[in-house]
C-alpha cells in the first residue's frame, strides 16, 4: 500500500463518487476471505476487507448485495499472500444495499479493497477463523 493510497482512506459519505464493483459471492465455512465477483476493473477484490467480512457475518451485508466502492486505492492482506499485478482497489467498500431493508451507504470506507488480482492468489494460512461480538 502506498502512502497516497493510505491517505485516501476515509468514511464514504454523501456525495462521494461511488461505483458498483460486484456482488458478494460467498463466505466459506473455514472463514476465509470472501470473494467478490469481478466488477470494475480497478476495484474488485474488495471483499477481503475485514469490515465487510464482519458485516457479512452479521448479516448486515447480505449475500448478493450490491457493494459499492469509492474512488481511491489500497490493499489489505487478510489471509496469506496477496496476488500481484492488479490495479489499485477501491478505498473501502462504502455501504451496501442490504436486500429490501434499505440502503446502508455511507458507513463503509475501510482500508481499501484489494486491487486487481489480489482477490485471486490468496493462500489459505491454515487458521480457522470466525467473527463474533467481542466478549
Amino acid at each position, binding site marked *: 500500500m502506498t502512502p497516497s493510497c493510505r491517505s485516501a482512506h476515509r468514511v464514504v459519505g454523501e456525495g462521494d463518487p461511488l461505483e458498483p464493483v460486484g456482488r458478494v459471492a460467498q463466505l466459506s*465455512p*473455514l472463514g476465509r476471505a470472501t470473494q467478490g465477483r469481478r466488477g470494475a476493473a480497478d476495484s474488485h477484490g474488495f471483499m477481503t476487507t475485514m469490515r465487510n467480512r464482519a458485516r457479512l457475518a452479521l448479516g*448486515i451485508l447480505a449475500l448478493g448485495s450490491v457493494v459499492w466502492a469509492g474512488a481511491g486505492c489500497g490493499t489489505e492482506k487478510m489471509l496469506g499472500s496477496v496476488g500481484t499485478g492488479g490495479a489499485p482497489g477501491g478505498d473501502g467498500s462504502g455501504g451496501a444495499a442490504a436486500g429490501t431493508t434499505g440502503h446502508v451507504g455511507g*458507513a463503509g470506507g475501510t482500508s481499501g479493497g484489494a486491487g486487481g488480482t489480489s482477490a485471486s492468489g490468496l*493462500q489459505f494460512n*491454515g487458521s480457522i477463523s470466525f467473527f463474533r461480538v*467481542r466478549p
Partner: protein
Amino acid sequence: MTRSRAGASRARAAIAIGLFNVAALAGSAMLAPRLGATAGTVMLEHVELSAPILPRVSVLYPAEGANFPSTAPARADLAHAAALTFDFLLPACAATHASIIVPGPSDPPTTAAQNAANFEAIASCAYQDFVSKPYWIPALVDQIDICGAELGSSWHLPSEDEVNSFSAADEQVLASALSTPNATSLFGNFYFSLHVWVRGTNGSLRRGDLTPGATARVTDLPVDAGSSTHYESDLSLRCIRRTTVTP
C-alpha cells in the same frame, strides 16, 4: 436535515438493520453472534485459531532431558529449529504431494473442500516427510513464545479466559473445519486435535479442550510444565489472534 442528524439517522438505521439481521441469524450455528452487555454497542472481533505448529521430533528429541539447552536464547533456537508451521509446510509439502493445491497469482482462492484436502495432505506430509508428532517439550512451550516467534507478534498461546469465552457455536465452527473426510484415519491425524496448550489465568501452562460439549474446557496439565522431556499427548500447539473490527 443537517449532516450530523443525517449521520445519526444513518447510524440508527444501520444498527437497526444490523440487529434485525443478528436476530435473523440467531439460529445459525455457523455465525450466530452474541450481543455485548452494553445495549446499542456491538464490538466485533475476528478470531483466528492457527493450524498447529508441529515439532520435528528428529530435532527435538536429541535436545531433551540432559541435553536440554540451559539458556533462554538456546531454547528459543531449539523451538524455532523444530517448529513446522502451515506456511512452511504448504509449499514444502506441495513439492512432493501432488494433491496439495497452492493457488497461483491469477487463480481463484482455494475452496473449503480444497482447504480440507490440503489439511489432510499436510498432516500426512508433516508426519511422513518431516518426522513430526505433536510431542512438544513442555518447558519450551512454557518458556518460549513460540506463537509470536513463528507466526508474528499478533499471535499468542490461547489464554484460559479466551478458551472459556468460546461459545458452543464458536467451537462448532472449529470442529466443523477440522472434520475432514479422512481426519481420523490418516497418518498425522493428531493434526486435527482440538486439545490445545493453554496459558492459565495464574500464568501456568494448562490443557484446553475446544471440543464441542466439553465439560471442562481448561484443566491442569498432567505433567510438570517445567519438564524438559517431550510430552506424548494429543495437545496441539495452536495459536490465537483476535482483531477488533472497528465499526
